[in-house]
């Protein structure tokens, strides 16, 4: 197996210059995004890990990283100002417009502007050419489809205007097939995987393609073989003592969880045309290096 290291790790599973990592809150999305960035950087690539409106998650995810990754934070204001500059004719005017009280309210109240201008910031970073790979840690609220369909919607809705034209460029440069991979991070529960399946179908319907990778996180491991049966036998031997029964109930619950996780993985692997990697559960937050190791291992096993 050791000879396979150069070709089948997580870094080689994703090949596009932009990688969007999406998932609900608390599923370990930022750590997975950090792990993908680190794995790419270990290959000698110049990597940026991009976050929207948050500068802590990425910093935390990159703590202890053993390869250099640029941490880029997009704030709403800066994204809007940079996007407006070429349209209104210069950064000064853009700043004045974007900071004008009424306009500020208009922009903030208008739907989808955050998504649009953040993606424009991704486009700009890519166009600057200083990075080979940009990993984007999408916010937990709003799934990737809701984000990635926005440039196309702007293009259609504002056709003929400069924002419409920008919509097209953003779509072509950092959303279109071949330019971007989408990674969904999900928990190892059958219901969650069913949601992921729906999301994957929406992707196909609305974006004409599937996510590149599903990371099934926190896969519960099995307790030692025979432990549940042993606990049940002890509980039966001491019918007056409720404690062994309680322990047996806990172990039964853990066995159910492990079975659910197995089932979730099976369901995920049944997703048409989507690669699936597993990361095991641990009692406390794993480090980014742990996650790189698990993703690499999982990629090799799957390959």
């Amino acid at each position, binding site marked *: 197996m050791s000879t396979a290291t150069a070709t089948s790790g997580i870094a080689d599973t994703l090949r596009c210059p932009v990688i969007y990592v999406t998932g609900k*809150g*608390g*599923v370990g999305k*930022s750590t997975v995004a950090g792990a993908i960035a680190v794995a790419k950087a270990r290959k000698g690539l110049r990597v940026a890990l991009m976050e929207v409106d948050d500068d*802590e*998650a990425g910093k*935390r995810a990159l703590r202890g990283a053993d390869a250099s990754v640029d941490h880029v934070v997009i704030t709403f204001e800066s994204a809007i100002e940079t996007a*407006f500059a070429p*349209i*209104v004719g210069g950064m000064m005017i853009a700043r004045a417009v974007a900071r004008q*009280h*009424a*306009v500020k*309210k*208009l922009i*903030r*109240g208008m*739907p*989808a502007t*955050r998504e649009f201008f953040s993606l424009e910031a991704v486009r700009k970073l890519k166009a600057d050419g200083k990075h080979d790979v940009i990993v984007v840690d999408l916010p*937990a*609220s*709003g799934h990737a489809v*809701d984000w990635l*369909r*926005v440039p196309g*919607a702007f293009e*259609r*809705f*504002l*056709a*003929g*205007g*400069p*924002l*419409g034209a920008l919509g097209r460029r953003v779509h072509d440069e950092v959303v279109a097939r071949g330019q971007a991979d989408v990674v969904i991070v999900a928990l190892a529960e059958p*219901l969650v995987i069913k949601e992921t399946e729906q999301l994957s179908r929406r992707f196909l319907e609305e974006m004409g393609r599937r996510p590149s990778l599903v990371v099934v996180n926190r896969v*519960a491991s099995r*307790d*030692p*073989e*025979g*432990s549940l049966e*042993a*606990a049940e*036998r*002890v509980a039966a*031997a*001491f019918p007056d*003592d409720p*404690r*062994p029964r*309680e*322990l047996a109930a*806990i172990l039964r*619950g*853990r066995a159910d969880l492990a079975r659910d996780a197995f089932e979730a993985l099976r369901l995920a692997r049944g997703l048409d045309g989507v690669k699936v990697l597993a990361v095991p559960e641990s*009692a*406390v*937050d794993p480090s980014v290096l742990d996650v790189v190791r698990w993703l690499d291992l999982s990629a090799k096993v799957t390959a």
Partner: protein
Amino acid sequence: MKTPRITVSVGGGGVGKTTSSAALGLALARGGARTLVVTVDPARRLADALGVEIGQATREAPIDPRAEGRLFAKMPDPRSSIGDFMEWLFVDPVQRERVKKNPAYHELADSLAGVHEILTIALVQREIDTGDFDEVVLDTAPSRNALAFLTYPTQLLGLLEAKAMTWLASMADAAQGSEKRGGLFAWGRAKVEGLFGRVLGGSGIRNLADLFTELMSVRERWADLARKTDALLGHPRTRYMLIGAPSGGAIADIGYLVRSLERRKLRPTAVVLNRAEREPPLCEQAMLALLDQGRPEVVAADEAVLRETLTDLRREHELRHASADDAVRALEPRLPRGTPILRLPFVGPAQPSEIVLALADAWADHPLAVSRD
């Protein structure tokens, strides 16, 4: 008529926020208060656990006989909230249909952030107005920006009242060929129109202007909701419960939420830390003691595998315990002095209803879970 006390629970995703909010509601109901738990981001599993359905209706939650007739839940479905919201906002069906035909609405409706939250707030407000409840627990979306959602009605009202809107609306008038006004005003307007026109392009701005004109016409409905929501959120009796878990992300989220409360001149009532037990469950200790006695009923093979399993379990507890202690240490400097931190236990693998019941037990008799009456 009663005015309920509101408890807003906020926190990041994956910390068990919804479950511990339901458990708090149950503890309050057990204590005799008529309690409504409202979940902005409902999960099928929790709805099943409480015995209610996801939808606009308020239903009694028959999870525990000790709270019979006193625990209610409302879990609006985000997927149908656009339609429900339109019904709430535009009472006139003709106008509603006209708005739905506007291409701007059509393109943007799917990404209308905050609509579901506003609808939920409107629904909560309706329940408060009935005067049926002593306690309302409002479980917000699992996001560090949940507090921003709560002020959406006010933000949107501000937007509708902003000058930019007036310009947009007058542009819509102009598009329909109303009279022209001369002088400085028209000059200024033309400049701004030109600027917006450059940014948005031709056809888009007309549709958008039409949409905002429709919104302007129902401004009073916004204003009413915004006023009531502001009064509710700033009410001295309203409590803010920050829910977290021992992970770096959750702790950072709490710090962020404390700061956004401060910006609104509010402070957290308490922090609830899930999965932060101090001791391993008694049953594990008891089983170990039993094995140590060397009883003949336990065969050697069973003893060996149970010892191995108990060692694994204890290692997990130690890790979680240490991580919870770290979390408390990391939290303290981020909280206003004197903010209580309540540590709830890790409820191992169990059905969601069992977790709610176990956490309600952990809440029992805590001053935070006692209704004021």
